[in-house]
């Protein structure tokens, strides 16, 4: 459904009824003014990606600018010797658990914020917003103590909880925005047809929320996948650590093994790039739905 809204500009441009020349005058910027700056920016964006690919694939000691002859020995090394296989599993676990927890808890809260007026609503919204200014990095010490008291240090659970908590506020604000975009009358109609509130929500609202939930869930996954500090602080065993911590370990070695670092970086990037490619088309619309503008 959302794809229908996204490419609005083309749709307008395709309408044949409008006088074609006049629209050209403002709509069509000279090609040069698009392709030249875009190409320059693309170089800036893509050279770093190429660079890491180059280092990951070329043979150790090579200074060639093309990764040929190609080798996968860096990947094998980093996956087996540097335990990226284990890190990868842990990161997947943290990412998916954070995704599920964040989405469920934010869905419940977001629904309450979108559909009810209750006494502490304003205060709660304000609290949500204030959390955006609370830096997780500055709460490391008290968080460490809490998890130590709960005997969760060195357990992935601590990282999952911490990631979820810091993802929640924004996710809830976003989801409540998405729910507000679904007319309340649709739900009311379902009640009249005999559904209770939950069934009405599940049948009527939830399918319409799918794009928004995918966006929020992906955000949560990507953030948990990428985030580094909580895992660094709360997990001490190497067998428990996540990919960003593994990358940091590679980088902070006395003599950095650049090939291994590049291969580790690619391993870190692949899931995120896949998720990103998947949600790209929903991203623009998700935001332009006005959710972020509050």
């Amino acid at each position, binding site marked *: 459904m959302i794809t229908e809204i996204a490419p609005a500009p083309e749709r307008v441009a395709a309408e044949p009824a409008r006088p074609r020349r006049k629209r050209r005058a403002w709509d069509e910027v000279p090609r040069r003014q698009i392709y030249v700056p875009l190409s320059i920016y693309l170089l800036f964006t893509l050279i770093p990606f190429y660079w890491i690919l180059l280092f990951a694939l070329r043979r150790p000691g090579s200074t060639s600018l093309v990764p040929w002859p190609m080798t996968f020995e860096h990947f094998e090394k980093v996956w087996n010797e540097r335990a990226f296989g284990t890190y990868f599993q842990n990161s997947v676990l943290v990412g998916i658990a954070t995704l599920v927890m964040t989405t469920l808890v934010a869905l419940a809260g977001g629904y309450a914020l979108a559909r009810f007026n209750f006494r502490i609503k304003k205060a709660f919204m304000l609290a949500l917003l204030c959390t955006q200014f609370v830096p997780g990095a500055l709460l490391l010490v008290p968080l460490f103590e809490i998890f130590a008291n709960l005997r969760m240090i060195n357990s992935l659970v601590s990282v999952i909880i911490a990631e979820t908590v810091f993802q929640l506020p924004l996710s809830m604000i976003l989801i409540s925005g998405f729910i507000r975009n679904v*007319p309340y009358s649709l739900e009311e109609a379902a009640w009249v047809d005999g559904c209770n509130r939950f069934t009405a929500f599940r049948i009527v609202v939830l399918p319409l929320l799918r794009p928004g939930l995918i966006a929020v869930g992906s955000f949560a996954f990507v953030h948990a996948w990428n985030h580094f500090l909580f895992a660094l602080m709360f997990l001490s065993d190497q067998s428990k650590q996540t990919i960003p911590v593994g990358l940091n370990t590679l980088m902070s070695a006395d003599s950095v093994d650049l090939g291994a670092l590049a291969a580790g970086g690619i391993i870190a990037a692949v899931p995120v790039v896949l*998720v990103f490619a998947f949600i790209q088309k929903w991203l623009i619309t998700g935001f332009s739905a006005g959710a972020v503008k509050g």
Partner: protein
Amino acid sequence: MAQAAAVAKRPAPPRRRRASATPRRLPYLLIAPAALLMLGFIAYPVVSVFYYSLQNYNPTKPWRNGFAGFDNFVHAFTDDPQFWDTLTFSAQWVFVEVGLQLLFGLALALIVNQTFVGRSLGRALVFSPWAVSGVLTSAIWVLLYNSQTGITRYLADMGIGSYGTSWLSDTSTVFPAAVVADLWRGVPFFAILILADLQSVSKDLYEADEVDGASRAKQFWHITLPHLKDAIVLSTLLRAVWEFNNVDLLYTLTGGGPAGETTTLPLYIANTSVDAHNFGYASALTTVAFVILLFCSIVYLRLSKFGGEEK
């Protein structure tokens, strides 16, 4: 369906409350999990930071622990040049990063908002660094900047610069080098948000203006920019706070060095608490950082009129 969702932008305030369908406790039950998690893992830590900020608290020197009054704050403001240095650097970092990211992000959004061949691929490619983590960004730029096989070597081959330079370990180049690395990842954030907002500029506005013979530059100043104002204000503030707080990139890229040249206040706080175990003092610095950010959040609330539509 799509139409319905798109048209009904305005929130539908609950009109008739049906006693049977809406138990009064339901909204509280629904926000309870989120509220409990946030109380336990955000509010409580924040309160304990405030508490520790008034204490001498250092697990490695337990004999000195105890109530300290405002000593930590006094020390920070009067007796700790590192506090001022890191605070100044933070401000500089945030200002330069947010300014440049906004500038390039706006330009990029305007470009990829045009209709041209290869637009969706172009968008996907320019936005892609957005999803890359701070640590991975560091890894990539460590590869680019390293002195033996980095980009400088190839530049030197072409006669630009000299061999063996490492931009990250030279105090005169580390700042621009770190700024560029963070720009690489930060520009897409603004580009995405601004592009999203550009979708809602009515084409009729431009057409009307076109009839009046306004140039494209004038259209930008008179129509596009005013329309984007809210989005720009909001994303700039969010980003400023985020850039202030974020430690991943600088921690892994420069480690705050060389010679403390790129240590932000949060990095300094992390070092004070994790390495020096001076939790009390770190908490006081954190409190100062909070107050600075609180000031931002008040501005933020004023400008965005958040929650104002519910009345």
